[in-house]
């Protein structure tokens, strides 16, 4: 079976690029490359990952300046043609600013930077990013962000719900969706959404930080495994 080639975009201020590279290269033994934000070629990548971090120091709004990095024109074209794009944390924020996903991210309700393991309920296990999660009730994955409070207006939320685009919600360990399980104030406990076409996913939690058994948790690896097993099938 052919394996996809992964391209990880590196912005000034990205800091989860190497973690993601490590997981794809060392855990999954895949073809993976770094793509500097100033270049205009995606170098034949099959999946583009916008990694976590603090691109451009989070100045103005998170992701607002990275969205205009030269490579983003290519990423937007790639996504619009059906190419697979995964935005993690700051990468999710960039996807929102780029208009590839709807809504905005605002400061955590608590105003605190929240860094801890949370539980995620996967609401849509039919996407190319989540098929391998089938059978698992919740995922234990860490978050680490100050601005992960997802907001969208009621019409947008209705569209997201109606089309099964809310892929992950913050939950309790048993999968129930409660206010106390919501770490940042996100509307309807939203932790990750997908575009209508199903090829662009943004999520605040960090699957790359829970993919190596050395770290004591591997639930995040199911997302990368889903991409590897399902992109060409």
């Amino acid at each position, binding site marked *: 079976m052919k394996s996809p080639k992964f391209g990880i975009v590196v912005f000034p201020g990205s800091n989860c690029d190497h973690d993601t590279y490590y997981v794809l290269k060392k855990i999954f033994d895949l073809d993976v490359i770094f793509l500097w934000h100033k270049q205009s070629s995606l170098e034949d990548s099959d999946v583009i990952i916008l990694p976590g971090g603090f691109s451009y120091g989070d100045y*103005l709004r998170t992701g*607002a300046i990275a969205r205009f990095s030269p490579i983003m024109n290519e990423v937007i074209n790639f996504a619009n043609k059906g190419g697979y794009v995964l935005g993690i944390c700051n990468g999710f924020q960039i996807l929102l*600013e780029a208009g590839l996903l709807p809504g*905005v991210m605002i*400061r955590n309700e608590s*105003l605190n930077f929240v860094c801890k393991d949370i539980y995620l309920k996967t609401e849509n296990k039919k996407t190319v990013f989540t098929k391998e999660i089938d059978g698992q009730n919740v995922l234990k994955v860490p978050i680490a962000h100050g601005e992960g*409070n997802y*907001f969208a*207006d009621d019409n947008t939320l209705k569209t997201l719900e109606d089309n099964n685009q809310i892929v992950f919600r913050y939950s309790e360990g048993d999968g129930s969706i409660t206010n106390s399980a919501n770490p940042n104030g996100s509307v309807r406990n939203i932790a990750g959404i997908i575009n209508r076409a199903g090829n662009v996913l943004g999520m605040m939690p960090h699957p790359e930080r829970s993919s190596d058994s050395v770290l004591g948790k591997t639930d995040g690896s199911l997302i990368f495994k889903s991409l590897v097993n399902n992109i060409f099938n």
Partner: protein
Amino acid sequence: MFKAKVLIKRRKTILDPQGKAVEIGAKHLGLCNIKNTRIDKYIEFNIDTSDKKAAEDEVNDYCKKLLANPIMEDYEFSLEEVK
């Protein structure tokens, strides 16, 4: 040349966690009449043109595409001629 003064305000319907937190400080200070604290953005810059219409267009473009996020923010600005 013109100087632009841009005010970017988050829509009233969107929570402003910073404003809310700062207002807690006001309560602690004993300023019990303070309500609806909102923290917005004020940005200044120059536009190097003598054509006011061109300057306005460029400020609008800058605001719409980068300085403000039209999903959650509105902006207003003033221009003054500078030497």
